[in-house]
C-alpha cells in the first residue's frame, strides 16, 4: 500500500515537471537563438526599425508590433462587448429551452480550427469589407485591419463567454436579490452589482481572449494582407508578428531565420507582459 502511494506521488510529480520543463525548454530555445540575432541587428534597429527587407539585411519589426496591437485592439472592440453581453444573457436572462442549443453553439465556436475561420474570412468577410471600403471611397482590397479584427473578434468570443458566464454564476444569489430588494431594476442589479462582483473572472476571460487574438496566425495570415509597413487606415492591410514568422520561415536562412526567431521572442515577451498585467490587476482586486 505504501509503495503504491509513493508511486502515485512520483507519477504526479513527473507529470507536473513535464509541463514546467516544456516552458523552460521553449524559453531557452527562444532566447538562445533570438538574443544573438537581436544583438547583431541592434536592439533599437530591430524594435523601432520601420523597414523589413530581409534581402538587404534590414530587419525592423516596429510595423509588425503595431500591427499585432492594432488587430488585437480591433478584436477587443468587437469581441468584448458582444462576449460579455452574451454571457450576461446566458447566465441571467436565457430561457431554459434556448440555453442548451446556445451553450452548445458557443462550445462549437471554440472547437472550429483557426484555418477554417481563416477560410471563412477569405471567402465571406473579405469580399464584404472590400465592397464596404470601395463604396465608402476608402479603397482597399478587403484584406485589412478591419477584416482581421472582425474575424478575431469572433474567434475570441467563446473564451470570453465561457469564463465570464461561470464567473457570473459564481456570484452569490443574495447579491442580485439584495439589489432587487433595495429597488434596483434587473439591468442595474446585473451591471452594477453582479458584474462588478465577478470582475476578476471577467478580466481573466478578456485577457485569455486577448492572448488568443495576439497569438492567432493561420486565420490572420489569410485575411490581413500582410504588408510589412506602418498601418495605413483600417481598410488597408497590415502584417502581425505571428504571420511574419510563419510566412517567411520556409525560405529563411542564416540571419533572416534568426531574426524570425527574435520576432518570436518579442511576441513571447508581449504575452509575458500581458500575464503580468493580469496578475497585477487581480492582486489589486483581492485587496
Amino acid at each position: 500500500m505504501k509503495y503504491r502511494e509513493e508511486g502515485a506521488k512520483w507519477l504526479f510529480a513527473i507529470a507536473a515537471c513535464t509541463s514546467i520543463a516544456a516552458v523552460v525548454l521553449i524559453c531557452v530555445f527562444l532566447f538562445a537563438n533570438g538574443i544573438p540575432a537581436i544583438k547583431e541587428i541592434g536592439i533599437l534597429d530591430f524594435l523601432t526599425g520601420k523597414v523589413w527587407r530581409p534581402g538587404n539585411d534590414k530587419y525592423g519589426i516596429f510595423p509588425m508590433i503595431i500591427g499585432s496591437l492594432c488587430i488585437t485592439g480591433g478584436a477587443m472592440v468587437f469581441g468584448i462587448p458582444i462576449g460579455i453581453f452574451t454571457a450576461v444573457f446566458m447566465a441571467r436572462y436565457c430561457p431554459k429551452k434556448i440555453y442548451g442549443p446556445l451553450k452548445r453553439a458557443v462550445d462549437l465556436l471554440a472547437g472550429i480550427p483557426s484555418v477554417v475561420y481563416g477560410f471563412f474570412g477569405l471567402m465571406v468577410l473579405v469580399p464584404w469589407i472590400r465592397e464596404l471600403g470601395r463604396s465608402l471611397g476608402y479603397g482597399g482590397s478587403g484584406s485589412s485591419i478591419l477584416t482581421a479584427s472582425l474575424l478575431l473578434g469572433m474567434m475570441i468570443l467563446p473564451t470570453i463567454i465561457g469564463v465570464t458566464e461561470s464567473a457570473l454564476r459564481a456570484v452569490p444569489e443574495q447579491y442580485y436579490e439584495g439589489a432587487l430588494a433595495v429597488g434596483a431594476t434587473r439591468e442595474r442589479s446585473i451591471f452594477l452589482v453582479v458584474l462588478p462582483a465577478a470582475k476578476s473572472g471577467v478580466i481573466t476571460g478578456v485577457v485569455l481572449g486577448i492572448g488568443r487574438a495576439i497569438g492567432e496566425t493561420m486565420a490572420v495570415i489569410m485575411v490581413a494582407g500582410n504588408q510589412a509597413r506602418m498601418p495605413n487606415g483600417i481598410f488597408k492591410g497590415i502584417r502581425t508578428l505571428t504571420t511574419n514568422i510563419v510566412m517567411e520561415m520556409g525560405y529563411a536562412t542564416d540571419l533572416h531565420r534568426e531574426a524570425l526567431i527574435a520576432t518570436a521572442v518579442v511576441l513571447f515577451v508581449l504575452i509575458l507582459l500581458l500575464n503580468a498585467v493580469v496578475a497585477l490587476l487581480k492582486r489589486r482586486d483581492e485587496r
Partner: protein
Amino acid sequence: MNVKKRIIILFMFGLTAGIIGGCGTETGAHKKDITVISREDGSGTRTAFVELFNMEEEVEGEKVDMTTVEAQITNSTAVVINTAAEDEYAIGYISLGALSDNVKALKIDEAEPTGENVKNGSYRIARPFQIAVKEGSDNKAAVDFIAFMLSEDGQKVVEESGYVGSDTTASYEKKEISGRIVIGGSSSVAPVIEKLAEAYKAVNTKVQIELQVTDSTTGMSETISGNYDIGMASRELKDAELSGGLEPQTIAMDGIAVIVNRENPRDGLSSEQVKGIYSGEILTWDEVEE
C-alpha cells in the same frame, strides 16, 4: 442615465469617428486602386518575377527588390488565385503550371502565356528548372535517371505536370542498374522530380531515389560538397556555382503568368506597365491604357 455614462458614450462615438475619419483623408481617390498581390520574400517565384521584370535597383550599392510595400503578401499560390478571382481590381503572378480557369492570364508584350510561346521564346517571363551534377560524379544510377528525365518519356511526364518540356525524340533504354540517388534543392522543382521519379521507378525498380526539399542555393552547394548526387534549382546557375564544378541541365521551363480578374477589360500589359504597377508607380487601373 447619469453624466458619467453620457461622457463615456460620447467618447466612444468620438473614437469611432476619429478612426474612420483619420484614414479617410483622400476619400474617393482610392476607388479603383489596383490590388497588388505578391509572394513573400525569398520565394523562388518572387525572385524569378522580380528578376524577369528588372525590378531590382541599386540603392547605396545594394540590390533592392522594388516591390511596393503596399502589395499584399501571401505564401500560397492558392490565395493569389483566389484573390484575383474575387477582386476585380487585383493583379498577381503564379507559376504557369498552376493557372486555373477562374482568372485571366495577361499577354505580356503581346505574347500569350502558353507553353508553346515559352518554348519558342516569345513569352519571355519564364524560368528554367535545372538539375546539376558534379563533374566526374560516378553514380551510374544518377546518370541513368538523368537520361530518363531528358528522354521523350521523361519530357512527357514534365508536360503532364503542367510545365514546358522540350520536343526531344531521344528514347530511353532500360538498363540493369541498381543503386541509390539523393536529390535535393528547390521546392519549386521538387514536384516535377517527384513525378519523374515515380515514372522512373515503374521502369527501373531497383533504384532508390531520395528527395530532399530545401531551396535552390542549398541544392547547389550540397551538390558541390557531394551530399546530393543531383541538385535542383529553379533559376540559372550562378558563376560561383559553375566554377565549383557543376554541370547544369534544363529539364523543364516554367512560365510565370500575370493574372487578373476575369472582369478586367484588359487582355495584356507591357512589361513596363507590370513593372510600374508592382513598384507602386501606377496605382489605379485608370492609369493603365487599355
